[in-house]
């Protein structure tokens, strides 16, 4: 009997085989595209079946496999436990949906030979990261994942922006891997125990644990998009083809979250309480700043990428809460917070994939990513706009969809904070809860803007007038995701119970069994404290809406007349006179922008009697980029300029330098305790 881990490794091997096949097929783009995406769809679906079987049986023992590759004295270890099973479900489901979407969307790709080989390789890399059970395999797969996704980012490398995005992504990915390398180096200790099992058994000292946590925040955080390490994300994710953007935003960021959970919750052992404050702080900061950046954005795909940053912030806030409760031996509250984090990770993979697919459909139909040039697409693309609307409602965490449930669970976890003993946490957690609420409200504003400007109103350019509905594969992928957004929202008990093995293995506790609750409602602690029933809310809304429709159509007037819109006597026939995304965001920019973006607005009026137009100037600064990254770049330029002299020394000076360095090294060795 072959173990489940081995089956999944075969899946990875066949994905890599597909990648090689794709290189061979690059001369026949049409059939090659369909074959490659068909194969990846089949492999991901098979992997999902295997994983579903595991989840239903709920096996206690993890499945392992060792391959005789990698470091000679270690080999490559792979392990499939509850945590990796959950994340593999996210990865392979995202992969299956992206492949399904790619079946249709891939035919619009002008250079398929640059996409097809790397797409299966990227999927294989993400699977391997989650399967890996030793540091070497983990880092190798992580780097493989980064590089294959980098290749997908620069598919259209002739556009200047994309080349820049690829460069910044490469720099940030290398930086992140460096931090991970150091973290695993600290964990493995001087003995070189590279397997996760040995690290778990060793149990790091508090000092080492602190360093590892900080390094994980840098390494996994830069991949996930934690502020201020997020700068590459809104450049790189939109640059890739849309189904790859969906994978990067919806799935790869979750792989980063997996890495963080694996190390911090699993390998590090018992956390200290103040380490959770760091996670909470950066989570809250990321959530609010991410969505504020998204609100200022007018590129649809970049808006979605910024919103990914916000959602990562929400996930990290929940993870920080779980750490705080775990450190204070409050296992049931910790299980609640961790469930909220994982649930939100799953939800985000659903609705962010859906939204990127929708943005891809808009891009194919109109050739535009700039929302200010779109508008009125609801008439041209009714089905796409419907599923995009579902995604927008879900991501704005509004009931009865899934985003609300995970947000609600996070709030319930926040409400457990008075039982925490430390004052720092007691004051911090409600403040972070306020930030969470702020980011949720701003997210709703952001997606009113995204949907309203793109799909509603009147067409702003002629590009929209020739738009057409997306193909049937793309629509199928989007409708499946939209249905799941609703299902996970009205039947959250299934998901919460499915997550219980993960919380059991990481925290040793779980949320109460939800499927046994009457009427399938979810009750985190006790029904008298808090409960939510998405199913009943949905049914009630459906019943009362139908009742209203019935009464209206039975008793009220049926007359309907079409006429021009009311313009106060000024018929504004020009579609340009509509509200734009920038003007929609103006009130929020006035409230938050002066502080966060140093936004300045000025109006230049022509002198009286002149007939020239008045001009409105808006300046927005990316404060993080300008105050953190540009100085680092300048310092590096300065240093490399000056170190350049070292290249032109005489041999005597080189020998002196080598000698001096040797003495310094020996001194260090002699003085080392």
């Amino acid at each position, binding site marked *: 009997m072959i173990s489940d881990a081995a089956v999944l490794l075969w899946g990875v091997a066949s994905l890599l085989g597909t990648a090689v096949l794709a290189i061979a097929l690059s001369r026949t783009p049409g059939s090659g595209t369909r074959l490659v995406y068909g194969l990846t769809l089949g492999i991901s679906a098979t992997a999902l079946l295997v994983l579903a079987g595991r989840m239903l049986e709920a096996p206690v023992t993890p499945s392992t496999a060792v391959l005789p590759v990698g470091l000679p004295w270690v080999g490559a270890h792979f392990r499939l436990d509850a945590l990796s099973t959950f994340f593999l479900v996210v990865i392979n489901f995202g992969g299956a949906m992206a492949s399904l979407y790619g079946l249709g969307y891939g035919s619009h790709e002008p250079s398929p030979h640059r996409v097809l080989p790397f797409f299966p390789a990227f999927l294989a890399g993400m699977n391997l990261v989650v399967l890996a059970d030793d540091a070497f395999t983990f880092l190798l797969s992580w780097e493989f994942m980064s590089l294959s996704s980098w290749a997908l980012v620069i598919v259209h490398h002739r556009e200047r922006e994309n080349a820049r995005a690829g460069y910044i992504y490469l720099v940030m990915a290398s930086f992140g891997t460096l931090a991970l390398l150091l973290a695993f180096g600290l964990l493995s200790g001087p003995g070189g125990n590279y397997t996760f099992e040995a690290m778990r058994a060793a149990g790091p000292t508090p000092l080492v644990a602190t360093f590892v946590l900080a390094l994980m925040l840098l390494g996994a955080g830069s991949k996930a998009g934690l502020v201020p390490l997020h700068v590459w994300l809104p450049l790189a994710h939109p640059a890739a083809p849309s189904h790859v953007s969906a994978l990067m935003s919806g799935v790869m960021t979750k792989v980063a979250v997996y890495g963080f959970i694996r190390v911090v919750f699993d390998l590090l052992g018992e956390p200290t309480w103040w380490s959770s404050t760091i996670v909470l702080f950066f989570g809250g900061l990321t959530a609010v700043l991410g969505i504020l950046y998204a609100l200022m954005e007018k590129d649809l795909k970049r808006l979605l990428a910024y919103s990914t940053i916000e959602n990562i912030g929400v996930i990290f806030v929940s993870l920080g809460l779980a750490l705080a409760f775990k450190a204070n031996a409050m296992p049931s509250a910790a299980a609640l917070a961790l469930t909220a984090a994982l649930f939100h990770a799953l939800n985000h993979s659903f609705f962010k994939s859906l939204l990127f697919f929708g943005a891809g459909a808009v891009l194919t139909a109109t050739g535009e990513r700039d929302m200010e040039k779109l508008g*009125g697409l*609801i008439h041209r693309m009714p089905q796409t706009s419907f599923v995009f609307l579902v995604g927008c*409602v879900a991501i*704005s*965490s509004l*009931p009865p969809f899934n985003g*609300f449930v995970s947000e609600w669970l996070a709030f*319930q976890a*926040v*409400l457990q904070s*008075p039982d925490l003993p430390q004052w720092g946490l007691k004051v911090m957690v*409600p*403040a972070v*809860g*306020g930030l969470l*609420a*702020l980011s949720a*409200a701003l997210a*709703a*504003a952001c997606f*009113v*803007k995204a949907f*309203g*400007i793109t799909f*509603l*109103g*009147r067409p702003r350019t002629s590009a929209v007038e020739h738009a057409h509905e997306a193909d049937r594969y793309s629509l199928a992928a989007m409708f499946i995701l939209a249905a799941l957004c609703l299902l996970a929202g009205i039947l959250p008990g299934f998901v919460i119970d499915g997550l219980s093995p993960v919380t059991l293995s990481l925290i040793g506790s779980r949320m109460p069994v939800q499927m046994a609750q009457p009427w399938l*409602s979810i009750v985190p602690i006790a029904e*008298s*404290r*808090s*409960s*939510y*029933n998405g199913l*009943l*809310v949905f049914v*009630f*809304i459906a019943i*009362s*809406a139908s009742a*209203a*429709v019935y009464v*209206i159509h039975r008793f*009220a*007037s049926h007359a*309907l*007349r079409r*006429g*021009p*819109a009311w313009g106060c006597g000024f018929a*504004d026939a020009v*579609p340009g*006179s*509509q*509200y734009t995304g920038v*003007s*929609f965001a103006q*009130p*929020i920019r006035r*409230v938050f922008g002066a502080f966060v973006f140093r936004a300045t607005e000025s109006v230049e009026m022509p002198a009286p009697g002149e007939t020239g137009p008045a001009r409105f100037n808006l300046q927005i600064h990316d404060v993080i980029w300008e105050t953190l990254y540009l100085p680092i770049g300048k310092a590096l330029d300065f240093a490399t300029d000056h170190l350049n002299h070292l290249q032109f020394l005489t041999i005597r000076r080189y020998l002196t330098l080598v000698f001096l360095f040797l003495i310094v090294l020996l001194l260090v060795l002699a003085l080392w305790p």
Partner: protein
Amino acid sequence: MALILELAVQGAQMMLVLLLAPLLTGFVRKVKARLLRRQGPPLIQPYRDLLRLMRKEVVLADNASWLFRVIPYLIFAATWVAAALVPTFATGLKFSWTADLIAIVALLGSARFFLALAAMDVGTSFGGIGASREVMIASLAEPAMLLIVFSLALVAGATQLSTVAAFMGSPQVGLRVSLGMSLIALVMVAIAENARVPVDNPATHLELTMIHEAMVLEYSGRHLAMIDFAAFLKLLLYVSLISCVFVPWGLVTAGAGPWSYVLGVVFYICKLAASGVLLALFETAIAKMRVFRVPDFLGAALMLALLGTLLLFVSRSL
């Protein structure tokens, strides 16, 4: 039998909020008019308006989409469900655990989301201006509301409204500074959410000064009736919410006799009348503020709510 009774009480609550909502708005209008020494419209004018709107034909903008025609029903349904989940005359109803306070606030958020979308559908500047200001107000009012929920949950140990109301009615509450702050903050949020003076003016017809009315400018006939009805329900919801949390007397608990239900309804109507008078007094006494003063107003609500929460962390008895 017990189940049928429970369902009947729940159904009665749903119908009660539906029946009383226009009356409350009519009452506020009447009191405001009397305070200005005007005669004012009769109390039942809102019902008449609704009937009149339903009998009229709908004038739809040329480029209005299917979404524009669906949204009024969605808004009405979401608001009605939310209003029916707040305890009005009784606690512990059959479906009261369907949604706690956070979920009720979020349901109103759904309604607002769709209203803002409807405003942008036709593509006129009025819709855009209304929607953009509405989401700005919401982005400040929602965090304030959530911090108020935190305070209440800290005091009562629950976000379930029936439990909160039962706790607030018990003698162990007493006078607390934090609850006072929450009350003021909640009233401020309620004023902003219901588009009342000083945040918005429900009676204005000058497009540039209004928010809610600008969003529904393109609606007419039965669609407008639905949206107006939802606005009536929302006002009733906030009044019920404030009175069930801060004036929890006279609420019927589950399993009481029929007379106590009648008494509960009478109590509830008295509370509505008192709140209506207070709202009218407040609105008459204050002038509408400029739109960009609203963030300060809501920021004050946010700070009060946060202060209340922090006070509770300092001492659970404050």
